[in-house]
């Protein structure tokens, strides 16, 4: 059971290893608030859709199962959309169209197809939770880097006055813009590959 949970965190991390769900990943990773909001939303949808699909998945005719999955996912995304726009209008504004776009996030459809439709309820819930957390952790990591380097802030709070727009050293605004996102994710993936290669190269004692 625990393995279903932990595999999503590192070994099969949906974003950094499987390269799924890149669009929201790069687009909302401008600040930590966005990252946490998006992470929660995606995890909630993943857990709910995995649950429903593992229970009712076997009743879907196999030819139209993908549209059925999409309807289930879209329902939960609509719920999240309404909740966020009602209670967190600011988050709603900064995430913008990327909340409804959770529907086409390949992680969620991928887990429904590859895991939830073939497994029992409890493992599917854990799988959804693990994958959601893996997505959130990766998202928080990259947003942390981009927010610190790009605007000199953590969770919207300036770290020191030296490293701010009024201070001696100005933060590199390019990091919070589009190019920064691409470069940071490229380097993070490279770092992960480098670590993996080093682990493999070590002699087995």
């Amino acid at each position, binding site marked *: 059971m625990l393995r279903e949970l932990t595999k999503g965190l590192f070994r099969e991390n949906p974003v950094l290893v499987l390269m799924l769900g890149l669009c929201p990943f790069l687009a909302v990773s401008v600040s930590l608030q966005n990252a946490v909001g998006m992470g929660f939303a995606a995890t909630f949808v993943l857990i709910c859709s995995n649950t429903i699909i593992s229970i009712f998945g076997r009743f879907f005719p196999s030819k139209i199962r993908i549209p059925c999955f999409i309807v289930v996912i879209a329902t939960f995304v609509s719920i999240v959309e309404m909740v966020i726009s009602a209670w967190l209008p600011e988050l709603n504004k900064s995430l913008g169209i990327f909340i409804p*776009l959770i529907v086409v996030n390949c992680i969620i459809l991928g887990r429904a197809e590859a895991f939830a439709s073939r497994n029992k309820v409890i493992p599917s819930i854990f799988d959804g939770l693990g994958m959601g957390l893996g997505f959130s952790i990766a998202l928080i990591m990259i947003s942390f880097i981009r927010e610190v380097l790009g605007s000199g802030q953590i969770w919207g709070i300036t770290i020191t006055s030296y490293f701010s727009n009024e201070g001696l050293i100005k933060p590199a605004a390019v990091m919070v813009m589009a190019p920064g996102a691409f470069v940071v994710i490229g380097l993070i*993936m490279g770092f992960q*590959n480098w670590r993996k290669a080093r682990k493999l190269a070590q002699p087995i004692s």
Partner: protein
Amino acid sequence: MQEYILLFISIVLVNNFILAKFLGLCPFIGVSKQRKAAIGMGGAVIFVMTMASVVSWVVYRYLLAPTDSNLFYMMMGQGKVPADFDFTFLTTVVFILVIATLVQLVEMFLMKVVPPLYDALGIYLPLITTNCAVMGVALLNIKDFGMLQNAGVSLVKTALQGFGGGVGFMLVIFLMSGIRERLDQIEVPDALKGAPIAFICAGLMALAFMGFAGLGQ
């Protein structure tokens, strides 16, 4: 006329779907290894994005939005106000179904009627359903132009945004495939081979495209 040209330029170059709005990244990284595949994918995306923009606009304007032209309001709206027929909360569900159906229809239509085009685009079409650029353009259209008073202007702008978004997608994925064909032949640090170096190149491209800011709106 000038307004439309500016809109087109700004969608293709300034607010490029991949490099500025981060939409459609999965096919961008996945299908940009060869130039031929990139052109096929780009063509399929232009086609589907234009169609999806128009169809989703019609669905939103005449079925979902609470306006005078809502079909449900026109049929059974005696003694009620348009706001009673506000189905916008269904937008996400309806759009994804419309797009998935549309892609299937386009695929079947091309297979029967234009076989050469189907051979060129066929394998890319099913991938497009989960391409967030298509869903993204539909949602952006509603946000940007959905509520314009003049239906004609709104429709033209919507179609233009869909077509321009597709053209921008094709331009960038084609440029990227050229870069990646070169990258295969030069020495890259082992850790960065494949996707990581592609992302870094995309970053540099995004930086270059930022130079277009100020061209459009």
